[in-house]
Structures are given as C-alpha cells and as structure tokens.
C-alpha cells in the first residue's frame, strides 16, 4: 500500500545542500508492522513526515494506496491525512484545553461525522486503549502513558489505513513503553498497517520488519 521510489528531500543549509532523504525506495504491504530505526539526524522524521503527508518530497514518486501524492494541493493532502492516516507522536500532541474524549473526537469532527456516530466511535476507541474511565479528564490530569493512549485512540478512531508512530515511547518509562507497544501489537494483530519510527533497537525488534535509516539512506535488516 505504500510505495516510495527514489524519494529525496533536500534542505538548504547555508550555501550547501543536505539530503535528509537520498533516493529512498521502500515498499510496505497492507497489514505490515514495520519499524524504521536510525539515530537522530538520520532522516527518519523526514521519512515519517513524507509518508504521513505532512511534507512533500522534492523528487521521486510516493504512491499511497496507489495514489501519487506529490501532485496534491495542501487541502487535498489534508483530506488524505484525515481519511487514511493516524498519527501518534513522541510528545503526545494532545490539545490541552480539550478532554480526552474531545481530543479523540476531533478527527471525526473534521471528517464531518454526525454526533451520535461520533459518540460510538469515540467510546469504542477509548475502550480499546482501556481509558473509558478517564474520558472526561484533561490531558494535564493524565499520566504520560495515559496521554499516549489517548493519542493512540485519536489515531485509530477514524479507522485509518495507516498508523504512524513517531517515537511513540520516547517520553515514557519502560513499564508504560511495554503497555503502549502491547497496544500497537494488538492493533497489528487486528490487521492495521503500522509504521513505527524509533532509535531504540529493542522497540524496533517488536515489529515484524525492521528498516534501517542512516544519512538519508535505507537498508533492510534481516530481509
């Protein structure tokens, strides 16, 4: 479902050019659980931004579900993000003024889903991450692990084709990390496509396939 061919992303730094991604080619099938591992500055965040349609490649072809992305305008990209992709970020990125339930509801509002339908979807998603009891709490009243579970609920509530995790456990202790990874594995077992970006080998190894990234170049591990 994801097809990257010779994708490059170049940043202008001073007078020189830095290749954050250098002719990356990657294919990910539906239902795969892939982790992308690399040290900081390796280009893994750029890769995730491009896969997540937050950023556009300078050259190369990116097909998401067979649709070429680079021709799209910003508003079309916003549509793709809201229909096909669920994000989970390292720093949770919840909106602090909204309760857990409202945070989870937000993508559905942007999709224009009706109120009663929203309620059922939100309840399902919160149930799935075991947070039903905390639905009415603000993010600031929740622990890091709970916040990240809210973020996961928000990512899965729209039933996206792809769940993208950008160091989702980077800010968590080992016990909560296990908890969150457990949820990701469960989601994978239920047939979701998951891409996890991390610099932690232990985490990466929980995925069914590991891709290495270094200096903007990809290499498969144990393929």
């Amino acid at each position, binding site marked *: 479902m994801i097809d990257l061919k010779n994708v490059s992303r170049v940043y202008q730094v001073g007078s020189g050019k830095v290749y954050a991604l250098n002719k990356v080619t990657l294919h990910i099938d539906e239902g795969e659980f892939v982790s992308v591992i690399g040290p900081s500055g390796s280009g893994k965040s750029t890769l995730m931004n491009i896969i997540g349609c937050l950023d556009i490649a300078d050259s190369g072809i990116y097909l998401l579900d067979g649709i070429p992305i680079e021709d799209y305008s910003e508003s079309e990209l916003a549509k793709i993000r809201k229909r096909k992709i669920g994000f989970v970020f390292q720093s949770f990125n*919840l*909106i602090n003024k909204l309760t857990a339930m409202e945070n989870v509801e*937000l993508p559905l509002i*942007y999709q224009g889903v009706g109120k009663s339908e929203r309620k059922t979807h939100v309840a399902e998603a919160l149930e799935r991450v075991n947070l039903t009891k905390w639905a009415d709490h603000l993010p600031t009243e929740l622990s890091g692990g709970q916040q990240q579970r809210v973020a996961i609920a928000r990512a899965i509530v729209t039933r996206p084709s792809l769940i993208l995790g950008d160091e989702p456990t980077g800010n968590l202790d080992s016990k909560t990390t296990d908890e969150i990874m457990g949820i990701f594995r469960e989601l994978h077992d239920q047939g979701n496509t998951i891409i996890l970006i991390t610099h932690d080998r232990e985490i990466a190894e929980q995925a069914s396939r590991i891709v290495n990234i270094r200096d903007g170049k990809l290499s498969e591990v144990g393929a």
Partner: protein
Amino acid sequence: MIQSLKMALKSIAGNKFRSFLTMLGIIIGVMALVILVSLVSGATGSVTDSIAGLGSNLLTVTVSDDKGAPVTLHTLNEWMEEDGIGLIAPSGEISATARYEGNSDTVTVYGTTPAYETINGLSLLLGRFIKSSDVDNHTNVAVINETAATELIGYTDCLGEEVSIDGVKYTVVGLLEDDEDSLTAVFGRGSIVAYIPYTSLMRLSSETSSAITSFSVSAETDMATAETAMTSLLMERFDQDDDAFTISTRDELEDAMSSVTSNLTILLGSIAGISLVVGGIGIMNIMLVTVTERTREIGIRKAIGASRRVILQQFLMESVVLSMLGCLIGVFLSWAMLRIISVVVSSLSMSFSLEWNVVLIAVGFCFVIGIVFGLYPANKAAKMAPIDALHYGG
C-alpha cells in the same frame, strides 16, 4: 460551523481576562456610537416635537430691500383684506434693559399689533393684550410674560406696575403665560419678554421705523394659499424681485433643524466609528498573539486532518465572536447608560432611548470589523506548514 462556534467560545472562555480586555475596545466604541447618536436623536426629537407643536400655521416675512416702497402698518391692514391671508402682525424686536425698583435685567422687547396674540397663539393669564387704540396712540403699555414678572418685579400679580425699559416708563397691562412650546422657549428657556405697541417701539428704538421689516402672517384657510398670496403681493410691491424678501415657514425651520442634527449625528457617528476601528485593531493584535501561541495546536489539528479552510474558519469565528460579544455588551451598557441619563434629565422633558437603527448599524459594523481584522491572523494560522507548526517550541 456550529463546531467552530463552540471551539471559539471555548477558547474565549479559556482566557477570560484577556478576552475582556480585547473586547473593551469594541465595548467602548459601541457605547460611544450608540449613546452619542441616541442622545443627539433624543434631543432632536424633543426639539422637533416642540417645533411641530407650534403648528405650521404662520408665515414669517422678512423684508431686506423695500425698493423705496416701505411696508407700513397701513400696508399690512390693506393686505389683511386680501384673499387667502388671515391676520398680519408686525414684529419689531430689540434687546433692552428693563428696570423695576432696584432690579434690572435684559429684556427682549417686541413691538407689534393686537393681531400678534392670535397669530402666535399667546395665552393671557391676567389683563389684556395690546389694543388697536394703543397702537394708534402709541401709549406706553407693556404686556410681559410670567418669567419677566417673577424675575423683574418679584410677583405675578403685577398689573398696573410701572417698568422702565431703556429709560422709558411702561405700564404693565397684561401678563402672558410662559409658553413651554414656543420657539423662544425651545431655544432660550426662561427669557424675559415684553410686548409693546409697534408705534411705541418706533419711539423707543432708532432701529425700528414705520418701514416694517419683519412680520408674521396667518392663513385664512391653508398655508399654501397664504404663501402664494403673500408671495404675489410682495413680488408686486418689490418690482418682481424675489431677493428683496424672504418668506419662511415652520417647515423650513424644521428642515434646518434636522439638517443640523443629521450633520451632528454623522459627525459623532464617525468619531465613534473611529474608536470602533481602533477596537478592531486591538482584536487583530490579540488574534495574532493567539495564533502564535497556538502554533503547536494548529499543527496538531492539521496533522489529524484539519484543512486550511477549517483552521481559517476557526480563527475567523473566534475574532467575530469576540467582536460580536463586545458589541452585545456595549449595546447592553449603552441601554443601561441611556436609562440612567433619562432618569437624571427627566426634568428637562427629554427622553433618550436606544435607537434601534443605530444598534443595527453597530452590530453590522462590529461584524465587519471582526471579519476584516480577523482575516489576516486567521489566514496566517491557516497557511502554517503542518510540520513547522508541530515542531514549534518543542
């Protein structure tokens, strides 16, 4: 739409003090607009009511150039016989000093004939008005108003008292009711007035001669006929020169009043409008701060699927809601303020109420301000690149 309204209200409520300060500019602007305009139109209303209360049943003729054919008392008597014309009374007017025992005061002295009483609808409390014989014999009699009696003489039962006007003694023969609705009452409340025979005024003042320069005319049937008849008489007398005289009616006076007050309204309205614009700039300023503060939130919203349009709508809604809320508060405070003013000045028999058309203008203006000054910040928010926004400030 409803969702973005909810979000806007939430965000405003989440920062109450700042929202209030932001709205303050709009509140003050709206209050200035609504209160000032309502005050002007309230005052105008009471003045024009007074003018209308006089009835438009008299013409005032002023002669500026008599072309060697002066209008005399005799002429006026002839003209009174003409068709369409009712009564005619000359009105010479001077300002003089009146003395009674130790008191002295400035008095407006009118020299006229008996017809004046009927034409101007004066009402006597005591005694009589000027009679034809007074005019014929230029007797020194005066009819004074209540204010003159109380201010100058000290009591109202003053018939037979002798008052000196510019050194000449006049016997008071009549007392007039202070006319609340008269034109002089409207413009100069409580002025001291004395009426004396026209011929006596000719002797008293060098400014007044047998050539009458100003007189009032009542209609036999209707004003239009009277005006036509009077015009043709005057044209005939003054060699068809319509610059030699002017005929004015109450209608013209009302027109003049309303043009003065509508100019005043526009002037005050535009000053208040400027303060509203200043309030709008305040909103824009705060919205820009808000957009910067919430850069990260904008990034999150974009990442989970908000389009540019949605973000634009959200921030635009916030500025419009801020502005409209300020407007509502401003209108409410204006209403309260006008009620208080009305109570305070109730003795002046003026009533001030909220002018609904001004309120509508204020509401419309605030809406436009909310949109115009919200557009730039909202657009700035909408155009943010999602990754830059997400990584803003950590």
